[in-house]
């Protein structure tokens, strides 16, 4: 049998054609689920701060409301203070009316 002589140029040409007719490599089946799960976890990671911000915001509003209700409602000591100041204002108005009824002169 005749042995073919080794020609580097010819070998290079043949090697250059070795990808002719190449078929597409299939991606591993598990890759889909891997991609989906990493996207899902990314999405969850994205959702978490926003969800917590909503919860924290609502909680803060409720606390604010409660504090305002306790400190501004007229009950207990506050109610007494309110009554005192009402009494004081009525006393002052009495003094005023006395002053005018006596012709505006102080004794």
């Amino acid at each position, binding site marked *: 049998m005749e042995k073919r002589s080794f020609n580097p140029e010819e070998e290079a040409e043949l090697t250059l054609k070795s*990808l002719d007719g190449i078929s597409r490599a299939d991606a591993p089946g598990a890759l889909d689920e891997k991609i989906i799960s990493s996207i899902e976890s990314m999405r969850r990671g994205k959702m978490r701060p926003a969800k917590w911000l909503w919860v924290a915001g609502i909680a803060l509003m409720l606390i604010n409301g409660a504090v305002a209700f306790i400190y501004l409602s007229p009950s207990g000591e506050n109610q007494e203070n309110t009554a005192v100041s009402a009494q004081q204002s009525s006393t002052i108005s009495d003094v005023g009316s006395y002053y005018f009824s006596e012709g505006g002169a102080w004794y």
Partner: protein
Amino acid sequence: MEDESFINELQSGDSGAFRKLLKLYRSLVYNTCLGMLQHAEDAEDMTQEVFIEVYRSVKNFRMESKMSTWLYRVATNKCLDHLRSKQRGKRSGETVRIDGEVNVQIPAGHNFSHPGVALEQKERAKILFAAISCLPENQKVAFTLAKVEGLSYQEICEVMQMKLPAVESLVHRAKQNLKNLLKNYYQSEK
């Protein structure tokens, strides 16, 4: 061209639409990454990164090009970034002349076998892939898209956003460089 409603579903974050996209294009992306990176595990990781990037930026997809063109573009850019970061770690003796002619030797121990190559061509294809890894970036992308993905020059123009003569020239120079690299390789093997 993809259905506009499908793109709209993707843009609204519909998970069913994303699964469909994966099913349609996972092999396209994986095969491109495999051809570029020449490493099965790296190609898997890169495919994952490409789809995550697609998920993040699909809102900016303006339907001016085909979805496949956009995916090819994202995949090749990601692969080039990966190759650059890998290259940064090790200085090779590669030199590329101003006209794009490569002055380098095919690295020894390069043993990538593409699963889509016919059995009788496996050994030659291993040497060719090793030679492709020595090409300058643009030539590598153009040649891989043409020969591994089987894209037409027109499609490569759209992916690489270049004019047709530029792509023709890139593929031509890639072939010339590969021929020289392979000739030198076989001469040293003689």
